């Protein structure tokens, strides 16, 4: 097991470095520097500024400093637009928000999706099964940026139950719609995957044996069917996580929740490259970490995987 984890880490570290280097080089390929303004600065001032931010150094040196700053101090450097704020401060402001509704959505999507999928498979061809299939087909074409306005239309404009946006320190009224908008399509995908893998497992030989020796159906499902049926679901969690983080950008923009997605889009519109890179690298690191966890979980559940 340890050597398997080590092997996965050996892939994860270069991936992250590659991501940092790609985004760094992209930033340098951008036309204009961070201090290019409508009124050109006097050359001496520009030279001083560049010296302060280390921009007069050769490219490899700048890159090394940047990477080292991240690796040793987790420091993404100063923002290019807000002269008095660092990238770390900007990220630290939005990250807890994203984490709150993101983890809630994730838990909700997995819990409801798996439950729905399992029951749809157990009561195959019942109304619940058809409902689950219907929902999962429908949710496929309702991504978060479509769900968000529909939810606002129904719950804010028609029913007037929930506020249309804001965060207010995470009061529940402000969390409900972001969580629903973010989790629906994953819930549907998880339900679909669970249902089909559960159906397959329920038709396999070891389940027939378990039934033949007279185990109660509840035990057959909980002890023998659930675990193997979860494997495809677990391997879906990695990509789901990435899409969910991406979706949080929409939630932040549409519901004005103020998470890191907001900082990302703002910086994209302001050309604040430092913040963009910081968020991209952070998200990349989280993704890689999460994939690592998923892989380990998978190896732990599936006895067929040799490490």
């Amino acid at each position, binding site marked *: 097991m340890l050597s398997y984890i080590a092997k996965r880490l050996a892939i994860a570290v270069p991936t992250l470095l590659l991501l940092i280097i790609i985004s760094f080089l992209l930033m340098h390929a951008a036309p204009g520097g961070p201090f290019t303004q409508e009124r050109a600065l006097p050359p001496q001032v520009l030279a001083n500024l560049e010296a302060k931010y280390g921009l007069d150094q050769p490219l490899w040196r700048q890159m090394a400093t940047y990477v080292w700053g991240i690796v040793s101090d987790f420091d993404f450097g100063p923002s290019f637009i807000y002269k008095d704020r660092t990238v770390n401060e900007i990220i630290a402001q939005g990250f807890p928000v994203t984490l709150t509704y993101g983890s809630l959505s994730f838990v909700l999507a997995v819990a409801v999706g798996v439950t729905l999928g399992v029951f749809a498979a157990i009561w195959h061809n019942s109304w619940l099964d058809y409902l689950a299939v219907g929902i999962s087909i429908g949710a496929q074409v309702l991504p978060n940026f*479509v769900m968000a306005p529909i939810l606002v239309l129904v719950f804010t404009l028609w029913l007037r139950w929930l506020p249309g946006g804001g965060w207010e320190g995470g009061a529940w009224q402000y969390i409900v719609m972001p969580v629903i908008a973010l989790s629906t399509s994953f819930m549907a995908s998880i339900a679909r995957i669970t249902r089909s893998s559960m159906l397959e497992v329920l038709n396999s030989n070891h389940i027939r044996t378990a039934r033949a020796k007279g185990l109660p159906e509840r035990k057959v499902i909980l002890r023998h069917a659930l675990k193997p049926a979860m494997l495809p679901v677990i391997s879906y969690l990695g990509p789901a996580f990435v899409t969910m983080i991406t979706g949080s950008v929409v939630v932040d923009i549409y519901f004005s929740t103020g998470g890191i997605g907001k900082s990302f*889009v703002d910086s994209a519109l302001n050309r604040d490259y430092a913040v963009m890179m910081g968020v991209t690298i952070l998200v990349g690191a989280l993704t890689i970490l999460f994939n690592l966890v998923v892989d380990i979980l998978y190896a732990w559940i599936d006895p067929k995987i040799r490490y």
Partner: protein
Amino acid sequence: MVIDATKMKSLGDRLAAEEVRGRSPWADARKRFFRNKAAVAGLVLLILVGLFALFGNSLAAWSNEELDFTVMGQVAELGGPSFASGHYFGTDDLGRDLFARTVQGTRISLMVGIVGSAIAVVAGTLYGATAGYVGGRIDNVMMRTVDILMSIPYMFVLILLLVIFGRSIAMLFVGIGLISWLDMSRIVRGQTLSLKHKEFIEAAQATGVPTFTIIRRHIVPNLLGVVAVYATLLVPLMILTESFISFLGLGVQEPLTSWGALISEGAGTISYGTLWQLAFPLFFFIITLFAFFFVGDGLRDALDPKDR
């Protein structure tokens, strides 16, 4: 007489007679596809949406750039869908005809989807087939590269690209093309591995056909089924990606538009009571995605009858 005339005649007849028509796997698949009602409905919808994109402009009473000054400022009251004013889908908040805008958005969204998917088909198939067929260390390096690229949160990198190199459709195509082929290459590689040891490949190798020609002439044609199914399912994903970026205002820029941009505009103005601004683009978006998914599923079932 050495040659029996009657026997020769019957042989001649048999050679002249039309051969019993064999059923190719493709003909079988076509038959199964057309028996699948959802898939056929999807296909019909797609054709209709395609016709709408191609010829919708000649039905429109207004062009997508004209501003209707009579409704400007009172869009919620006067800009609704009506045949009398010629705004079949209503107008947007600037008084532009939503019908013409939707036609334009449909064109661009479909184009992005199809081009993105086409890049995936060409690049992914060649890459995957090469990796799978050559095998060994090269395969290992090639597929590890794909693994690494896949674990990068591509939407963020794509936005980074768009911001740095300017938000243009060309850049959008490059960005979407860069990521779309990864999944395809994995699927194709898996399929190639199973084809590699078939007799007809061995025969080609034995007669000295060069490696790349084997890939091109013998491997790739046998991959077509999988590739066709996956490409159909990829088009809606590309449309989703583009719409997502345009929804954030980072994709297609004015005066061009796309479904994502239109949905974003509509979503931004629902509180003013101009619901049609959201409803019409959303309708086209949803039925097209549905249609692509149904056609893709239908194709998969048709080409792989055992998997049902």
